[in-house]
């Protein structure tokens, strides 16, 4: 009986191995080894000729948000939104490129940016109840120029983000660049990557007379990466708001990406503050990632009002500490469903927010999502005062359906 069992087990194991491995046929009569053909090589410029691309996108969204304010009032909000984007990407040769991305939205929105842990972004404009579309707005409009293999320049309205934090990102010294115009240069200095940016954004830097050269926000980033470490140092200065210095170290510990970043700020009145953020990102699972975990800890001397300002205007002596945890899983990918959870907690005033979200991508072009959000804390605390919901609900359920598609065409062919 035992022998029969062992034989059966062997047959099952051997059978499964044979079923999975069918590479043996590749070795029955393999092509002999030979010398390589060295007459051709791959170009480092994939776009080395004249080309013009057109692209269009349509994003239609319907929301229904239902929830309670802190005083117990029930507020239900149906919202619809439409965003039509279009543009061109023209390349003259391998050195020059012009890019334009424009959009029209309904209802009129201030931003097209999306925020990973906030279902209310982009901000929903509830005051505009009539059928009113925005003017044609510029998302990006820039010119690229490559100076041989030495440097790459980009001039115009562009998007860019620095800093290591995904939940808290005080190291983004170029914040606001997407609403201004900027000149950027990138070059490799041996093993060090150099990026220099000059940003023109008067409202960001509280500038009234914007013609002077010192109205620009100037930023510089140096980065170096080796096997285990990635190091970076960056700086920012604007004569009207002050300066910042930032440094980070990123490495890998026990399979987790870990970073530590420190930011020093000095305002024009001489006030100084220091902010630190540390985080880790770890994926669990061999093939299917059953858990993706992101955790960040923010220690800020800026106070609750200064943390997200261009340059802080107060120093609370590291009393402002916050924790952010975000997790998602691929375990339900086979059902085209992705659940996630995010928790932000401010230890300075005990406020916070928790968001459970689930997105289904089972239908082509259509995303169906649901988010359960809780915002808690005393009146006037950080997350209550800065409630991401413009209706100030502290408990809410958001149901959302969005339809979207993108089309690109090259030289008139789609």
């Amino acid at each position, binding site marked *: 009986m035992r022998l029969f069992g062992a034989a059966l087990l062997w047959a099952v194991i051997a059978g499964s*191995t044979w*079923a*999975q*491995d*069918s*590479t*043996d046929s*590749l*070795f029955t009569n*393999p*092509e002999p*080894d*030979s*010398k*390589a*053909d*060295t007459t*051709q*090589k*791959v*170009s*480092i410029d*994939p*776009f080395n000729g004249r080309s013009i*691309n057109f692209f269009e996108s349509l994003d239609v969204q319907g929301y229904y948000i239902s929830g309670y304010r802190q005083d117990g009032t029930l507020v239900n909000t149906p919202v619809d939104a439409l965003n039509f984007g279009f543009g061109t*990407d023209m390349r003259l040769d391998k050195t020059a490129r012009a890019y334009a991305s424009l959009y029209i939205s309904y209802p009129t929105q201030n931003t*097209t*940016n*999306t925020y990973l842990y906030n279902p209310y972004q982009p901000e929903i404009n509830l005051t505009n109840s009539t059928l009113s579309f925005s003017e044609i707005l510029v998302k*990006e409009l820039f010119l*690229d120029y490559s100076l041989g*293999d*030495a*440097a*790459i320049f980009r001039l115009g309205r562009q*998007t860019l*983000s620095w800093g290591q934090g995904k939940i808290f990102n005080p190291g983004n010294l170029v914040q606001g660049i*997407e609403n201004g115009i900027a000149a950027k240069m*990138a*070059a*490799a200095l*041996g*093993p060090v*990557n150099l*990026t220099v940016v000059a940003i023109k954004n008067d409202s960001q830097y509280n500038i009234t007379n914007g013609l002077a050269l010192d109205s620009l926000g100037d930023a510089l980033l140096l980065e170096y*990466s*080796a*096997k*285990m470490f*990635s190091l970076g140092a960056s700086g920012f200065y604007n004569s009207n708001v002050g300066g910042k210095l930032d440094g980070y170290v990123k*490495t*890998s510990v*026990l399979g987790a990406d870990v970073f530590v970043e420190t930011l020093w700020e000095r305002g024009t009145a001489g006030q100084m503050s220091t902010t630190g953020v540390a985080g880790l*990102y770890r*994926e669990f699972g*061999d*093939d299917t990632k059953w858990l993706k975990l992101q955790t960040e800890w923010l220690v800020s001397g800026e106070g609750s009002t200064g943390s997200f300002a261009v340059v802080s205007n107060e120093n609370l002596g590291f009393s402002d500490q916050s924790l952010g945890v975000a997790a998602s899983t691929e375990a339900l990918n086979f059902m085209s469903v992705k659940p996630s959870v995010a928790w932000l907690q401010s230890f300075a005033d005990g406020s916070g927010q928790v968001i459970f979200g689930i997105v289904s991508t089972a239908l082509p072009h259509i995303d169906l999502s649901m988010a359960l959000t809780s915002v808690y804390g005393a009146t006037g605390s950080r997350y209550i005062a800065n409630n991401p919901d413009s209706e100030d609900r502290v408990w809410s359920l958001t149901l959302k359906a969005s339809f979207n598609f*993108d089309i*690109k065409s*090259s030289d008139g062919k789609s």
Partner: protein
Amino acid sequence: MRFMLLICGFLLAGGAFAQSDSKAILAKIDAQASFLDSDFSTEIVMTTTKPGEGVTERTIALFRRDREEKYVRLRLKPDSDKGKGYLNIGNNLWLYETVPTRHFTVTSAKDRFQNSNARNSDFTRSTFAEDYKIVSQSKEKLGPFDTTVLNLEAIHDDVTFARTKLWITPDNLVRKKEDYSLSGQLLRTSAMPSYQEFKGRFIPKKVTIIDALMGKTLNGVFRNEVTEYSMGKLSTDPLPSLIFTQSYLEKNSQ
């Protein structure tokens, strides 16, 4: 007591020898496929067959600076993906995305490459000697090849596969490879029956990867997903340092 100490001494010495011997064998395998004295570039033509879903074709430019562990992969075809790229420096991997906004995401080097059965780590230099130790070996005939079969175990966590099995011919070329999870689950099988010699190194003419887990049951039979790729347009000409930067990916993105 002395006898026991002597036995322990012999065992420890034997273990140390086996470890250094293991490293030397794996270093020879690595040397056949690494370009530590020059840059390396190639064009990869890849097809992925998903049962019941059809065949996906891609062409990728691969730029390698092995001595600094810097790698760039840039999609050339299909046209809709042209210019999308990955930058790999050491353990750091950046992917430049343009939707919904332009930003770099850091992804795991262990991840699948572009929804294929290849992994990001397949396109970096060979590092068996740094990542694995040999736990057993045997002899096996593989078609016309007399091979040594090496069973390897990872010596740290920063590897794509915890266990790997290699079929090595006497010229130190890997002809077949099986990758396993820590629990011993077969994840994929790769076959490299033929090589092309290039500047004293050896590059597979074609790599066939059979995914042991991904696939679909059709007509009652489980069909595995299969990815095949070949490497052409080989070159060791020096590459500009600017290629191995995030700005290069940004410049070429659409």
